[in-house]
């Protein structure tokens, strides 16, 4: 076996890890979205019981959180090295550069991956410190369901999305999620070496569907709460 670090640092290995970590996060986002769609049902107990269940996983939850954290850091690190490597590899840029069309997949999504990614990271920090660690949250968000005291995440989410600017921030980010996944999903498979005349059209299509579902799914939740649910 090639030493792990040698392989991981190579251009192929780096993108391989980037794709694995990115696609793992896509899986997480899908599950996260499914869980949070419960918010739209209006059943506060169902949502709070779901989050209570997740918290009750204890050590397992820590392991999952650790994997997600390690993966995103690895993903960001590789993303930044790709972006820096690009500048190094072409110190003198073209005066005129035109897209070639045809077989090219150089979409706006593709050329802005580093920007959508970095903004996503800022979002993740804000999102997690707000909802998970409740930084800057005032008031008592606990509730008792069936005699068990638990966090009232439902009310926290509804109260948070009663602020227009906060909703707007989420909307902008979710469009970026759509953009990141639109190129990221098929690109991740290509980086893993999956390119097949029979499967690639399916993967490309699935990527668009997932980008739309995840991006717009998360986009709808704050909008719904702001305009309809909170009433």
């Amino acid at each position, binding site marked *: *076996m*090639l030493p792990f670090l040698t*392989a991981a640092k*190579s*251009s*192929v*290995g*780096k*993108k*391989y890890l980037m794709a694995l970590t990115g696609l793992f996060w896509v899986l997480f986002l899908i599950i996260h979205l499914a869980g949070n769609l419960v918010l739209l049902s209006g059943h506060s107990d169902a949502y709070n019981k779901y989050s209570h269940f997740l918290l009750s996983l204890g050590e397992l939850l820590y392991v999952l959180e650790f994997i997600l954290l390690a993966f995103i850091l690895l993903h960001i690190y590789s993303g930044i*090295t*790709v972006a820096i*490597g*690009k500048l*190094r*590899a*072409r*110190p*003198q*840029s*073209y*005066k*005129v*550069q*035109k*897209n*070639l*069309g*045809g*077989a*090219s*997949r*150089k979409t706006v999504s*593709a*050329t802005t*991956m580093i920007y959508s990614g970095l903004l996503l990271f800022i979002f993740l920090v804000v999102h997690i410190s707000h909802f998970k660690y409740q930084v800057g949250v005032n008031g008592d968000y606990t509730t008792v369901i069936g005699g068990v005291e638990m966090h009232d995440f439902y009310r926290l989410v509804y109260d948070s999305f009663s602020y227009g600017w906060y909703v707007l921030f989420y909307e902008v980010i979710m469009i970026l999620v759509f953009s990141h996944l639109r*190129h990221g999903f*098929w*690109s991740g498979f*290509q*980086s*893993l*070496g*999956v*390119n*097949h*005349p029979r499967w*690639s059209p399916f993967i490309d299509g699935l990527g668009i569907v997932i980008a739309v579902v995840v991006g717009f799914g998360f986009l709808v939740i704050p909008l719904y709460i702001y305009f309809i649910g909170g009433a």
Partner: protein
Amino acid sequence: MSNHAEQSDMRLHLKIWRQPDADSPGKFVSFEKEKVSPDMSFLEMLDELNEGLIKAGEDPVAFDSDCREGICGMCGLVINGQAHGPRRSTTTCQLHMREFKDGDTITIEPWRAKAFPVIKDLVVDRSAFDRIIQAGGYISVNTGNAQDANAIPIPKRNADEAMDAASCIGCGACVAACPNASATLFTSAKISQFALLPQGQVERKERAIQMVSQMDFEGFGDCSNYGECEAACPKDISISHIARMKREYVKAALTTA
């Protein structure tokens, strides 16, 4: 294409990158080129420009070419922001002036990549590609007479795909067109052509690892799957070869001793 014969001579504004050598800064120099026939090839147009410059006692514009029939890979210019110019699946030498119109401004730049330093004007040094080939783009064969080619069974699909990969002429347009200046398409074509054939099996693993690490060492960028390389490639090499290279590399990395 009957109307081409009727298309009259054109007058063009050329903006050409001039650079004395790799270490000196370059700049664009403008030229007015009259009487350009639409039937000329792009390089013939530059030849004429150079004849004028030589007659006037000036330094002609340096550019590369050899076969001028799209098979050697020596030519290569970025024309109006596109590697090998506006016509798909075509090398610069096979591009004709009928692709342009009277009064057009044409900006001509060399391949721009750190790994392809400019030798002069539009000529770049592509020996980084040669070093990638040296790192693993060969096979072992016994001396003596070649055996009958038909004695080695090869599935038709593999033969076709290997042939597609082998049609890479090493021109470097993939690097030139890639926003990251990545050489992944070239390297993947050279790895693929052998990985698909029985003759390539002996060095298969070392080849994947050594060619990729040489490519990285030369200072090309990473592959972001933009696909501009395939669009620019005069031989339409598909990025599916890149996916094969990734599989080859990972398999080799996990299983070599």
